[in-house]
């Protein structure tokens, strides 16, 4: 069920599993990146659009962590998935309602993604990219992306 060990999350889990001492050494380094929250990504969310928080803009290009839920993938065998604040009940491309929340973050994993359980919370880590971008394969429009990402399940 939990597939992150075979995907972008594999490297860290391998390290974690290697030896306790290595974990102790590695943890501070691995977790040096800033943990962002969905609530903190924007300073305002209005009908006329979102405004990025100053911290979001300041972290552009840097490695960050963000916790959320993987939405059912738009394409199989892809490095691309959408991270949402809450579990997405409706696969927007399966029904005809293209009803994504506006505050989604697009994830480009470092490896092909095997889906997690979509009701399990995950933590994603990678380089933060800010600004409008259209995914060439799916046409999906995003404002925030985390690239070269790894992810793992959290409790």
């Amino acid at each position, binding site marked *: 069920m939990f597939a992150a060990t075979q995907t972008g999350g594999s490297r860290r889990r391998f390290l974690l599993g290697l030896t306790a001492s290595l974990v102790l050494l590695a943890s501070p380094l691995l977790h040096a990146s800033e943990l962002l929250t969905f609530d903190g990504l924007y300073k305002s969310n209005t009908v006329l659009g979102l405004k990025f928080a100053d911290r979001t803009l300041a972290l552009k290009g840097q490695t960050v962590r963000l916790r959320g839920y993987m939405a059912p993938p738009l394409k199989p065998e892809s490095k691309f998935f959408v991270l949402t604040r809450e579990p997405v*009940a409706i696969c927007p491309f399966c029904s005809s309602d293209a009803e994504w929340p506006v505050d989604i973050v697009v994830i480009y994993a470092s490896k092909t993604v*095997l889906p997690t359980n979509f009701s399990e919370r995950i933590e994603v880590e990678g380089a933060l990219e800010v600004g409008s971008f259209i995914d060439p394969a799916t046409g999906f*429009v995003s404002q925030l992306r985390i690239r070269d990402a790894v992810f793992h399940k959290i409790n």
Partner: protein
Amino acid sequence: MRFALAPLAAALCAAAFTLPATAQTIFPLNRAEILAGSHFDLKVEFPGLVDASAAKLSVNGKDAATVFGKRAELIAREDGKDVSSLILRGARITKPGSYTVTASDGTNTRSVTWNVYATPAKAAAKNVILFIGDGFSIAHRTAARMLSKGYEDGKLKGKLAMDEMPYMALLTTQGTDSIITDSANAAHAYTTGHKSCVNALGVYCSRAAASLDHPKVETLTEIAKRSGLSVGAVTNSEVEDATPASMVAHTRRRSDYNDIVKMFYDSKIDVIMGGGSPNFLPKSTPGSKRTDDVDYIEQFKGAGYAFATTKAEMNTAAADSKTTKLLGLYNTGNVDGALDLKFLKKGSVSKFPDQPDVVEEMKAAIKVLSRNKKGFVLMVESARIDKYSHSMDPERAIYDTIMLDDAVKAAQDWAKANGNNTMILVTADHTHPVSIIGTVNDEAPGDDMRNKVGTYEDAGFPNYPAPDADGYPNKVDVSRRVRMVFGAYPDYYDTFRPYLDGENVPGIKNAEGITVANEAYKNVPGAVLRVGNLPNKGPRGANQGIHSGDDVLLTAMGPGANKVHGQMENSDLFRVVAEALALGKPMAPAKK
């Protein structure tokens, strides 16, 4: 309705004798009812490649080019495939009668017969207000009465406003592809008078690859505006969603939201209100869902629209006597439903604290539209009856049904005070498999919830508090509450309780893509796992409730409403509107 008999005979002949497996398809389809003077695309799809010299198209035995004043264009290899088609965009017939269209590829011949109808020359109604409760089924209506009126000595203490309308019909909702419709296809039937297929708006479903290439039929907005009327659509869904979009859109795919925003703009529809702002914002604006840099809010403003993002702004704009066009976008997603908006304050109410409800939207819309002395057409949708039935959240669906009825009441009052020349129609686009089977009584003995379900005389009457002035009880988590059940469902946890913390999310896909019950409800006291009876995998795997194919009720009042009776096709509603407003005058072909 009476007018379908002759084409029916033709259809039976066509089906029995002239329909080989390889026959060409002609759009509009056989037995189409076409308003005189309305525009439509005529398309013939041949099963193989056809030489331009061999393709023949005639209407009642005459060359089609003569009849339409322009020639159909041959698409030699449609979408690069080994098939040819004929297309004639913007065709129009002004003289009423029976029209048999025959297409030949030199070997096979196929005919369809259309009925082109005119309307009375003089309009019976000045205005039409069409209410659509999305997914609004009989059980929603019964429950809305139960909560907002109550009973005494076995009789209701009052009626719903929509019950106090003299004309009623059962509408069938199936489309060209299926016995089950969706909101796009269903609303399309109301706004064009033609049948189509699931996901389609303002088009017949042809084999064209691109969603915008299918043969179009005109919408009520295009036709009514040509007659000088003002037109509006207000909803609590996103404005691009299927029902409001059906007023203007021509696409095979209802999810073409960005195209639909452009279609709203191009249609010059006078009033649009609802949620769904992200598709109006240029892609450079964070939160936009557009793929281009067009700022449609600026475009609308530039075209003379007042623009509102809150109820206060809406009321100010509507009160200004100079406002004749109004765009209101009150949420990035759907506007919150009545239970959240007025009582629980869940959903997105904290983010968008000043959203109007459907009643307030409608009142503002009428204020603006009625400034056109020629009259108006207004669609009013209570959209979330459907959405909350998909999410299997009965209380939220019932509250939005009460809201629909409040809007109907306000429209009736307005019509009475303003000349009694407004036709009011109240209907649904499709149903959900919902039913009232009794009550849940917390006081019943035992712990397991199923044995607290009261049936027959044990159901008794629910004990909701007396409703407020708008018909809403201020509490849904009462000790004896209505038990609304769903006939078709995914795996989910049945909690036997209202969802006070936010809209229900019954099912979620797991890593294998199979829908499983949402574990969030597993530990609600008394929750029971229901193993679903709907497909749980593949592209049509259901993670929520679905539409049903039951008939919907249409009630009507006002001038022209007497045409509503018996059993009708949903597409017949368009004709009732067209006749009441004289949109197909026999001797006065439309100008422009």
